[in-house]
């Protein structure tokens, strides 16, 4: 479903993503781990066609990000780390706008369906200007699934959420994956979430892919969350993290 081949990006001569080659199968929940500045968001920006790679290629649902970006955009949904919406518009108006941009034929009806699914129909007529981070995150998720994409990209979806919000989001992600067959690509810092949600993980350090395996294999080899954390830290050494900071 997602295939990258030596995908590379650099800014002002500094390599942000270094020859990344990945394969993610249809129906997977892929957890992308890495320290701050590792290149996770840059990778998502390239895969969602927001940024052009310096070199390398990638395909999403069989469409090349470089040569067929419109087809890629039709196939994906994207939730950025901080969901920004139009504060003067209500949640429903924001969602109708994004549904129309995605070509949803009856946007009002679809928006109601999605808000129901996310248990946030009560937000429909409220202006998003006064929304909490959790409410924004839910509306953000709603805008990404309006057109029922094949692949959903989530950039740090749990960032800033309280434990209840994290659980609610996790349940939704699992539901979108199991009920609607969406392939999910998720950037995250939370190792505990990886084990509970993902079917495969990869670790990026300073733009380089240093680990990629299925979650069963990882848990069989490394056991619980604490062991996973140790694995993660061993792959992104403290010395290198300090260098980034």
């Amino acid at each position, binding site marked *: 479903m997602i295939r990258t081949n030596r995908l590379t990006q650099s800014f002002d001569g500094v390599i942000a993503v270094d020859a990344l080659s990945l394969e993610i199968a249809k129906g997977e929940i892929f957890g992308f781990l890495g320290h701050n500045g590792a290149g996770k968001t840059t990778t998502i920006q390239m895969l969602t066609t927001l940024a052009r790679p310096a070199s390398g290629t990638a395909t999403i649902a069989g469409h090349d990000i470089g040569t067929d970006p419109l087809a890629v955009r039709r196939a994906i949904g994207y939730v950025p780390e901080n969901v920004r919406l139009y504060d003067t518009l209500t949640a429903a108006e924001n969602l109708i706008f994004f549904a129309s*941009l995605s070509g949803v034929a009856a946007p009002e009806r679809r928006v109601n369906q999605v808000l129901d699914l996310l248990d946030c129909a009560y937000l429909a007529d409220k202006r998003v200007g006064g929304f909490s981070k959790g409410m924004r995150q839910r509306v953000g998720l709603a805008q990404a699934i309006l057109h029922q994409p094949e692949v959903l990209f989530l950039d740090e979806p749990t960032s800033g959420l309280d434990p209840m919000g994290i659980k609610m989001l996790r349940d939704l992600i699992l539901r979108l994956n199991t009920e609607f067959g969406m392939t999910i690509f998720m950037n995250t810092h939370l190792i505990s979430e990886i084990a509970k949600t993902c079917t495969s993980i990869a670790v990026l350090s300073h733009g380089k892919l240093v680990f990629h395996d299925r979650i069963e294999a990882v848990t069989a080899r490394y056991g619980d969350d604490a062991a996973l954390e140790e694995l993660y830290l061993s792959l992104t050494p403290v010395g290198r993290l300090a260098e980034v900071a």
Partner: protein
Amino acid sequence: MSDLTLTPVLSPPTPVRTIAAKDIRDALRDRFILIVTGFLGLAALVALVTGAIALRGDVATYEAAKASLLALGKSADAIKAPEFYPLRLLRGAIEQIEIIGAAIAILIGYRSAASERGRQTLSLMLTRPMRRWQFVAGKALAGIGLLASGLALVLGGLALILHLMSGVGLTSDDLLRIAIVWGVSVAYTACFFLVSFILALHMKQSSHALLVAFAIWLTLVLVAPQIGDTLDPDNQVAGGVFKQLNIAKPDQVEIMKGFATFETVRDGIEQASVTKHFERFTFAVLGIKATYAGLPLGPILIEMLGNLIWIFLTALGLGALALALPLNPDRLAKA
């Protein structure tokens, strides 16, 4: 159980229309847009009332002089009655559109781009199945639509007030002239909207774009036309040097031959300003410039065609530039 399992019916999206409609709805809920439109309307109204008061003063002076002459048993034919061309009262309003209207267009253009950058909503929009030019076209359509609506409100309101105030009412010819001026005002303000919009979309920091846009506004709206006027040799004495010295037209031409280079530079500075073209065109169509008062519309339009073409070509050129420049999403993600 939600019925989300029903796959949504997808149709070809119409992003230009969708973005324009969203932007207009968003702007109409923005107090800033309402306040600046109201401010332009108020400034234009004040200018109209000031013009009307001045005219009333002229009429009163004429009536007083006429009464004095008649009281002395003399004929009142010696003094000329003030002419009342109602459209000439729009002079102040046109000057407000020229200066404040252009400034408002800059603010709307800046807001149109910078608000998306500041809110970082672009990433959500640009991951939809649309081309980058459609995003630009939708935003530009909304901005120019807002300007057109605001100008229609202002000029429509002033036309109504003029109609009620003049007593004789406005003719269909007058209304046509106001409609033409509205169309040209939209094109004129669109130029400033597009300058600001392009800068706010493409400059590294959108706040710098506003400074640059206002520097351009200052040069085109205030400096260039003033330089042109100030350096005009005939403007050095009130009423005109040649007229005051009673120099005949052929002699004027002969004298001006000695200033050919100077005149080319002076005229070039004026010609470079879209504001000057707007002023020349609107002052002629509305009969504000005495030479054109009372002349039929057709010959005025023919004579002013160059100015008209200049204004529309500038707007179209800037529109084409806005569509042609590639968007940099990485830059757009930062305010």
